[in-house]
């Protein structure tokens, strides 16, 4: 999955792989993306002209489960990377599958949550809470889905024996993205769910 010439691959000025620098750079940029979305959510918190409000709608237990699954998936991907770097194929396959499954269950949890809310009468058009909630958590969910697709692609490559210790960097980069998506949720969960009854 290399996107640069072999001539450039041998050595870099920092000694870091260019793809690793690039993903960190991208993550820095993504911080501003989510900061803007979270800012918008906070600015409009409690400003809806009609219900249902965050306090009436959000249910913490289900999402706490989803949060736990996502946090554990960050641990799983670290284990998978460790397996890849040591050339331990069984460990790599086991933990990477666990990561993908955890990511899928988070996305499943969110799809269930969204459809549940829609049945209760909250759509993206209903009020400012609906608009900001679906936009913020929806874009996070899209990021999770992209991560699942990425990790699942690597899982298929791993099954074919293509993730050798020298190529573990490919998994490391995906894992960095995955941790980032996880960290964003660590901010969204308290801001959106735990503070649902907060009155500005």
């Amino acid at each position: 999955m290399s996107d640069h010439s072999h001539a450039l691959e041998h050595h870099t000025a920092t000694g870091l792989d260019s793809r690793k620098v690039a993903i960190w750079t991208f993550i820095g940029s993504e911080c501003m993306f989510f900061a803007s979305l979270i800012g918008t959510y906070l600015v409009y918190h409690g400003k809806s002209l009609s219900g249902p409000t965050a306090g009436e709608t959000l249910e913490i237990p289900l999402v706490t489960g989803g949060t736990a699954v996502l946090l554990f998936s960050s641990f799983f991907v670290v284990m998978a990377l460790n397996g890849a770097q040591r050339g331990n194929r069984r460990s790599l396959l086991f933990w990477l599958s666990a990561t993908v499954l955890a990511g899928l269950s988070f996305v499943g949890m969110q799809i269930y949550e969204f459809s549940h809310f829609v049945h209760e009468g909250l759509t993206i058009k209903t009020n400012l809470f609906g608009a900001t909630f679906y936009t913020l958590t929806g874009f996070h969910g899209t990021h999770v889905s992209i991560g699942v697709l990425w990790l699942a692609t690597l899982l298929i490559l791993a099954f074919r024996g293509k993730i050798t210790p020298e190529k573990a960097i490919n998994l490391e980069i995906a894992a960095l993205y995955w941790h980032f998506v996880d960290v964003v949720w660590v901010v969204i969960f308290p801001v959106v769910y735990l503070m649902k009854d907060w009155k500005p």
Partner: protein
Amino acid sequence: MATSAISHADQVPSDHAEKRGLWSWITTVDHKRIGILYGATAFIFFLMGGIEALLIRWQLARPENTFLSPELYNELFTMHGTTMIFLAVMPLSAAFFNYFIPLQLGARDVAFPRLNAFSYWVFLLGGLWLNISFLFNAAPNAGWFGYANLTTNQFSPGLNIDFWMIGLQILGVASLAAAVNFFTTVVNLRAKGMKFMRMPMFTWMSFITQVLLLLAFPVITVALILLMFDRFFGTHFYIPASGGDPILWQHLFWIFGHPEVYILILPAFGVVSEVLPVFSRKPLFGYAAMVFSGIFIAFLGFGVWAHHMFATGMGPIADTAFSLTTMLIAIPTGVKIFNWLGTMAGGSLQMKTPLLFSIGFIAMFIIGGLSGVMHASPPADLQQTDSYFIVAHFHYVLFGGSIFALTSGAYYWWPKMFGRMLDEKIGKVHFWLMLIAFNLTFFPMHFVGLHGMPRRVYTYPAGLGFETMNMLETVGALLLALSQAIFIWNIIKAWRGPRNAPADPWNGATLEWAIPSPPQEFNFAVEPEVHSRDPLWEQKRQQGPLPEPERVGGQGIHLPNPSFWPLLTATGVAGIFISMMMIQFLGWWFVVAMVLWFLFSVYNWIFEPA
């Protein structure tokens, strides 16, 4: 001597013979060719933006003119601003980033050559999409900063705003991909011995620009997503009747928009900081101060956005804070100006065209900077905002600033890019006509602005004292167009002339002048090593004048393969955004199809051997 070197090259058996033909351009991943594509495309958009400006000036030449309808006038000033910022100045800078960052770093290409091609194609498609709107008689018409809630469905039915919003989203993808690429390139591909504090100033300022792009563009992406949801999916982010706040748009837009003006000017600072030392025969004065003032400007650039919003009534605390941060920016900018003057002071000035444009830049930028400090003060700003005084200010910094500096860069680097010298005499005529015409066009705008002429209004009544000034401005605009025609004449003349530019026509200090003009595909036959800030000057001091570098075969140098997947992936990105705009006509299946097409291209790209 140069000619003999080139004819000699034809006989050398080469792994990297010069490529020709349309297909070689479509599949190119060579940063130099991508740079030329950026430059040529951006120059065409620049001329289109110029034609829009001429139509605007023709309408305003006389009071109560009926040359343009109010509706068309709205479209023209919106497209003029959007084009000049996103399709002209930014990609003209990108042309120089592409061509010269790797050369100045001593690298063979950027960190991700295919991603680089992808950025160009996405940029091209975004620019075309914005301009295709004219064919549907639905060009964007709410101004370049598209204030909510004018842009909501209620006040802007029709496709005009959709074209603008979708076009900008596509362009944002191009800018972000390029920024990740160039940031990584500078961090990782510096030649041996090139510490950060030895990098050429153009590369330094471009590096800072990438940071601004990375941090500013996501914010306008979110602002546009919210607008897109309002227009397409019935949300109420910017609709006051449903509790939404139009001021949110202004905050998000200007948190992007102010760093954006530094995105437009920092590369210009970089170009001038290259040209002045070479044509003054002196190293850049205050190198470290130049670097840190650039960083300081970029940092402060994120803390001044609300000075665009004094008229919204934010209250005395916010007004004071943003007024102070805005005035603070004058300090690092002043540091730069004094350093440029210090570079020239006592130097042996070579009055060549690139130097003339750089000196013109300093003078014009100071005028624009001074009017900028004036409306940093909220009471003054309340008088000046939305008047022609503001129009005068930002044209002095963007045209007098960015365009003068980019033109200086074009004259300076033309021989390196094309192996042909631009004519000095025509260049001097170009400079003096452009300088005079520029001031004739924009200086009177200060006066009509302070006398109360509002911007963005399609006409003005007679008898308010605006007539003479407006007529002068229109004459100036026509002369500006003539100066660009002279530039084009110069380009054509060079094109027809021999390709005989020497490798180092100006006695340059940086690595790009060590290799043949134009450089071979692999740039450096041997990867260079540097020991100082002006490596070529150091070498010439030690060894005397350098011989003309030979064109070599470059056997064994591995370069990335050409690829058409960047172009196809770019169509996928543009397609996803365009299909969103078409939901009302074509439904969701088109979006799904475009996402699948995008994924298909991405996977082919990833698994293609680089």
